[in-house]
């Protein structure tokens, strides 16, 4: 279980996340919804350790990780796929996966780990030697997802995985996300500005507005709530 209590994230004098309490149950998918600038990315970066928490605590399975560096948290099993196709463009697909694997693996060998990944995305297997920068947007997103999953994390944070992708690719990506949660029991936190998409795979959801949690509930309940998009998501 991942628990966030009283979290505050500040950039200078701007408060991006204000006193947020969130709980993510093991083996579930949680959607974080909200308009641009609502604080979704900052919340996720605070969980993975890329930005410091100005106040509050973050715990995984009861252990306080608030003071740990990002790379320590990564080794504890938190994987974070950032927004905007952030991968190592000049490295091949294989090298991207190797970098993602070699500093946090637990014993197993790289070949087994990467074969498992290529089973999930067969399309990547034929592009192993291609520099990641030359792949299409959808393939890049698959590499990012594969890199995030290669060491079988306990927690997976996905920031806007659908952004800028063709609908057919988005379907593949979301099918993969559901499968990871179902097959490996991974706890997934998914931020999306397309609420309907996220709610279709999530179990529960939080809605952020101006850095605060303004709604939470079962995904199925929020999905049929017509007032949601009008009130919080900017249409």
């Amino acid at each position, binding site marked *: 279980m991942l628990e966030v209590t009283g979290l505050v994230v500040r950039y200078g004098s701007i408060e991006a996340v204000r006193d947020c309490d969130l709980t993510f149950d093991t083996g579930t998918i949680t959607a974080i919804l909200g308009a641009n600038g609502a604080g979704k990315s900052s919340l996720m970066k605070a969980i993975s350790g*890329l930005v410091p928490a100005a106040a509050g605590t973050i715990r995984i399975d009861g252990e306080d990780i608030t003071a740990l*560096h990002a790379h320590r948290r990564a080794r504890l099993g938190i994987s974070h796929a950032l927004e905007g196709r952030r991968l190592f463009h000049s490295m091949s697909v294989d090298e991207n996966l190797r970098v993602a694997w070699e500093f946090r693996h637990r014993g197993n060998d790289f070949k087994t780990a990467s074969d498992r990944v290529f089973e999930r995305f067969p399309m990547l297997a034929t592009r192993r030697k291609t520099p990641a920068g030359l792949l299409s947007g959808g393939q890049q997103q698959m590499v990012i997802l594969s890199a995030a999953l290669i060491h079988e994390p306990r927690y997976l944070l996905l920031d806007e995985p659908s952004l800028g992708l063709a609908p057919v690719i988005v379907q593949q990506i979301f099918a993969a996300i559901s499968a990871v949660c179902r097959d490996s029991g991974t706890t997934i936190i998914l931020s999306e500005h397309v609420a309907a998409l996220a709610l279709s795979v999530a179990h529960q959801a939080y809605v952020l507005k101006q850095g605060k949690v303004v709604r939470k509930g079962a995904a199925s309940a929020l999905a049929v709530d017509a007032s949601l998009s009008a009130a919080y998501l900017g249409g």
Partner: protein
Amino acid sequence: MEFTLQLAFAGVCVGSAYALIAMGLSLTFWTTRTLNFGQGSLLMVGAVATVALLGAGVPAVAAVALAIALAGALMVVAERVAIRPLLKSGDSMGWVVSTLGFGLFLQGFVAKFYGSQAIAFPSLIFTSLDFVDVFGIQVSAQYLAVLTLSVALMVAMEIFLLRSAWGRAVRAVSHDADVAALAGIPVRRVVVLSFVASGALAGVAGVMVAQITGTVDPQFGFNLMVLGFVAAVFGGMGSIVGALVGGIALGVAEKLAGGFISTAFGDAVAFAILMAVLAIRPQGLFGRREMTKV
């Protein structure tokens, strides 16, 4: 003809030392996007420390190893006091001044104990009178040793960067430090590692060049660093092959200009090359354009 070939060969050898200096500058540029202008003084420290240790009766191998280790350690200090604090305040360019200041401090420190006069640098393996015959040209053994060692170090560096986990980590941090941290890479340790390696490379280059020139003084190193910088820009910042080709081209141009026009003309050639490269091909011979993330 033979005179030209001899000059060209000397240029290749000296140029390979410039390539090592370029390599050292690039390493820390990759991991921190800063240039350490104190690098020149570390060349000098490497050479002066070798002389000092030899004078104290330390055997040659140990003296050189200790001097190189000292240069590596001082580079970590430079990162700690002259670079890291200045990167905290956003896009500050303060590191230009602070790293230069660090270099000047080292110069002053050495000058206080050894004076500003040139100190003789002893011959370590070959004397300046040892010659080898290569395809009918008389080649100085010292120059040949410099070339061999430089090329070997560059090849080792390339293999390290391409094939090893920590080499990949250096490239990952260079491309996107956030993504690297999320992959479990200890970014701070990679940065420190790059500074140790950069300092050690400076130490090696310092000892090698001092071996050729035969003397060392507190100002020794500053010009060399500038030449290394030109080689790095010429070859393309961040490419090892580029640094080698850039360094060698620069060395040859400098020696030919020195031999046929005037030895005082060498630096002018270097800066002419720098200006021409910046005007015609700013990314360098082998470089890709630096992509800046928004």
